[in-house]
């Protein structure tokens, strides 16, 4: 939701703060300001509205919050419209009674529609809405101001007999304002005229659209069952400003004010007059809840003292009706604008929100009270296995449990089926792994493509399968070592360190690679019989890197008169090259030349995240091989 600061000030004439602090305050109040932009002489605050509050999609709702927070009045003038020149009742019908909460409509005749004035075009463009014509633009303006969508029909095209109905499979297609043909569902909520569907409730139609030749219009404003609106929007795959608002709980009692404001603006800007009596369909007036509130509770929930005076003042500013039940108990009736206030917790949030979350101290965490340890035993086991593998020089990888079908490995002793997902947008990865080996094989391929050599890594994660109609998952450990003999040795070592000596370990061959997989839930069952020790903390001094290209390997010969400790030499040259691009340094060969009486050390340096040319330059320089 974009808020043009000058428009906000029209509703809050007492607002003295500049846009930046107002944006910060709105963020604290729950309307996250993700940007403040200058657009010519205007400042636009962009708010991320995530609330369940429909009023927050309007200037009115946002201004109301600020009026409570700053304790300044909200300027809403009561509008009186001229009386209708004709005693004409609009022949509107509502057959979708369950889906309709309130509709207000009025006919205006003799209007002259024109392109919009600059102020209106500019205002809409700041909200990224294209200007269509004056009448349509005014409906959009009012939607932004009050958060209640409205719609105008050209009666020359639609006639007067509008019907709010669900499709009931009567119509198959509908052409929207922008000319898109939409396939209608069996239950799509429509506004029809004698010729068929004139509008969806979330988007107008092309056939009865307002244009510059329009001289008579029916202007309606309505609120519907939000679940129905949401279902329609989802099934038709249409996202509109109207739909976004109508999916929230809106205030039917705000409709008369918003509608009057729109009619006033149309009469002022397009001329003409009211030629029908007001159509108002509002069969079931909503009764606001009566919420009991213990005056101690806001303080209890916040953890700070909030006085009774503050509580009552905030509730009154919100236009709540308050009745004292006892000294400490209130009965609160929230205003119709705030459909989200239903429980005492909702009121408590309002009280704390306007008090300010920043008033709550940050240095008093929950007490360290010792409670029963409910940690499932598999978790310490996993931690221990990881620590042991790291000690043995293995790197941990984490990969995607959703895999490509060609990587699906079915464990020999598992009589189960793989699980396919139904609707993944990543259709190349449609199946959940049944074995961790699938992920390791994929990882191995990835590492190979980066020319990483001598790898040894592991992964612990869930594997998934279906047995008859039930779904199962368990933690599994997968290990890879470039030397299969060492792989087997290490796996046995791990199990013997954990306790179970009877758990079978065997090499699995998949995609020509050797792996080991251990079902950790089975390990846990065996560990239970033996002693379980506390896991020591694993030190992690080295860091993980995001490889952006292949590893580059270069050799260098260094001639020395004396024999030297190779490890010290590796460290010396590593330091010289620097860690920015050096991945690994080894001595691949030591040769003694008796004739020259010197030792030749052949270094093999591996460089990362650097291009060939730079790597070579660095290599030659640091090994002193430049001419």
């Amino acid at each position, binding site marked *: 939701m974009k808020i043009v600061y000058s428009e906000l000030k029209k509703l809050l004439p007492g607002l003295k703060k500049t846009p930046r602090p107002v944006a910060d305050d709105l963020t604290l109040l*729950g309307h996250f300001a*993700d940007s403040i932009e200058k657009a010519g002489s205007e400042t636009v605050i962009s708010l991320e509205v995530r609330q369940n509050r429909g009023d927050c999609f309007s200037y009115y709702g946002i201004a109301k919050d600020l009026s409570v927070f700053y304790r300044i009045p909200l300027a809403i003038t009561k509008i009186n419209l001229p009386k209708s020149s004709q005693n004409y009742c609009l022949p509107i019908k509502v057959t979708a009674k369950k889906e309709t909460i309130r509709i207000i409509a009025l006919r205006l005749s003799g209007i002259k529609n024109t392109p919009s004035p600059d102020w209106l075009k500019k205002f809409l463009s700041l909200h990224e809405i294209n200007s269509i014509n004056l009448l349509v633009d005014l409906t959009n303006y009012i939607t932004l101001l009050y958060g209640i969508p409205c719609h105008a029909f050209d009666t020359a095209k639609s006639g007067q007999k509008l019907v709010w109905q669900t499709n009931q499979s009567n119509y198959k297609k509908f052409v929207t304002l922008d000319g898109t043909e939409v396939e209608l569902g069996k239950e799509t909520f429509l506004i029809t005229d004698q010729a068929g569907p004139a509008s969806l409730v979330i988007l107008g139609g092309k056939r009865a659209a307002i244009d510059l030749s329009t001289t008579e219009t029916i202007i309606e404003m309505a609120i519907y069952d939000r679940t129905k609106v949401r279902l329609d929007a989802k099934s038709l795959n249409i996202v509109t400003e109207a739909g976004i608002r109508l999916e929230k709980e809106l205030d039917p009692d705000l409709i008369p004010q918003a509608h009057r404001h729109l009619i006033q603006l149309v009469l002022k800007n397009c001329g003409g007059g009211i030629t029908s009596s007001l159509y108002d369909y509002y069969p079931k007036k909503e009764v606001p809840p009566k919420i009991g509130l213990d005056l101690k509770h806001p303080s209890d929930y916040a953890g700070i003292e909030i006085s009774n005076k503050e509580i009552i003042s905030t509730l009154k500013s919100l236009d709540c009706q308050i009745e004292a039940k006892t000294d400490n108990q209130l009965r609160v009736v929230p205003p119709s604008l705030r459909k989200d206030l239903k429980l005492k917790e909702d009121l408590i949030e309002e009280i704390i929100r306007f008090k300010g979350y*920043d008033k709550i101290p940050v240095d008093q965490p929950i007490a360290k009270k010792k409670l029963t340890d409910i940690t499932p035993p598999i978790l310490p086991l996993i931690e221990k296995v990881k620590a042991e593998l790291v000690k043995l020089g293995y790197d941990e990888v984490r990969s995607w449990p959703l895999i490509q079908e060609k990587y699906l490995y079915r464990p020999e002793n598992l009589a189960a089926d793989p699980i396919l997902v139904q609707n993944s947008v990543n259709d190349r990865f449609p199946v959940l792994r049944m074995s961790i080996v699938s992920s390791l094989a994929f990882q191995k391929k990835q590492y190979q493509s980066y020319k990483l050599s001598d790898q040894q890594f592991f992964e612990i994660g869930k594997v998934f399968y279906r047995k008859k109609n039930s*779904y199962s998952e368990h933690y599994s450990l997968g290990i890879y070592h470039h030397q299969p003999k060492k792989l087997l040795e290490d796996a046995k070592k791990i199990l013997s360190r954990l306790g179970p000596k009877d758990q079978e370990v065997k090499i699995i061959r998949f995609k020509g690679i050797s792996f080991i997989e251990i079902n950790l839930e089975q390990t846990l069952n065996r560990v239970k019989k033996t002693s379980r020790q506390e896991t020591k903390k694993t030190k992690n001094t*080295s860091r993980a890197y995001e490889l952006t290209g292949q590893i580059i390997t270069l050799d260098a010969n260094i001639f020395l008169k004396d024999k030297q400790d190779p490890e010290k030499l590796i*460290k010396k040259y590593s330091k010289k090259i620097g860690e920015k691009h050096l991945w690994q340094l080894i*001595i691949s060969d030591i040769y003694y030349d008796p004739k020259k009486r010197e030792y030749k050390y052949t270094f093999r340096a591996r460089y990362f995240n650097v291009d060939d040319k730079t790597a070579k330059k660095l290599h030659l320089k640091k090994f002193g091989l430049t001419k």
Partner: protein
Amino acid sequence: MVKNSYFTIKMSSLNTFFRQYQKKIISVKTSEELEKLRVEILGRKGKISQFFSEIGSKSRQEKQSFGRELNRVKKKLENLIKTQPIKTVVKRKEGKKLKKEAIRLKKIGHLHPITITENEINSLFRSIGFSIYDGPEIETDQYCFERLNVPKNHPARDLQDTIYIEEPEILLRTQTSSVEARLLEKEKPPFKAAFPGPVYRNEKVTKSNHFLFHQYQGVAVDREISLKDLIGVFNKLFNHLYGTRVKARYRCKYYPEVEPGLGLDLQCFQCHGKGCQLCKGAGWLEMGGAGIIHPLVMKKAGINPKRWRGFAFGLGLDRWVMAKYKINDIRTLLGGNLAYKPNQL
């Protein structure tokens, strides 16, 4: 065989040469001496080469005769050098190649950055009495949404595009709050538990989006829980991870499963509030959400909200980890091109 004067003279000197060097080879004591002798006899500019060079100008017959003898002596001396007991040691110890295998520093193992971060946070929560908890990744609609106050067709479901196994009931969990729903149902209050884990969303995998990411969730249920307890925990966590100079911001935020709800922001650790690419100019990074557990969530789990109150929080770990490890592509975090330097250089 032609026995001319040249041949006789040269053979005599060759025999003398052989006897002299045979003696020398037998009496040699060190590998260095033997190697020196080998070069002196058999090297490119050694004695044998000298003999060969001397016959270059002679007749073909002379060359053949003396050459045959010279090769015989050369072979004898070569064998003698080879069979010297000391010679074997010399070859092994200081021959051409002194090491059969490459020499490298000890291979160091590494935990994944997400595990390291989870462990750090786990350790902090353990220190204030939290258990670490866990739950299934294949979930039901009931635990992932309904019990968390997100009924079917609730707009909040739009924020979490779900991957279904059997639509609409069986799915891959979209949030670790599903573990919260199970925890509330299973355990008897009071309890405190934290649970890291992967969650799934139906999103295309790109540089900045993934169908899999990681959350860290926590729950505490006791008699008197307040927002002060919750905010205090977060402050402790942020200080633990980033030091005491870090700035945090707590603001009202809507989540269906909590009331009151709050959002947790951290001043951007890259630009320190000035605004940068990481924080998209905001100066703050959204770290997650929290709040007092909604009474309906408690009721659905069979906990009386009049007797017990709880807080819950959820943090997104991936962005955090990516910033810490300077990872630009979210795909890197899970497999692919995340790698570890094999040695401590």
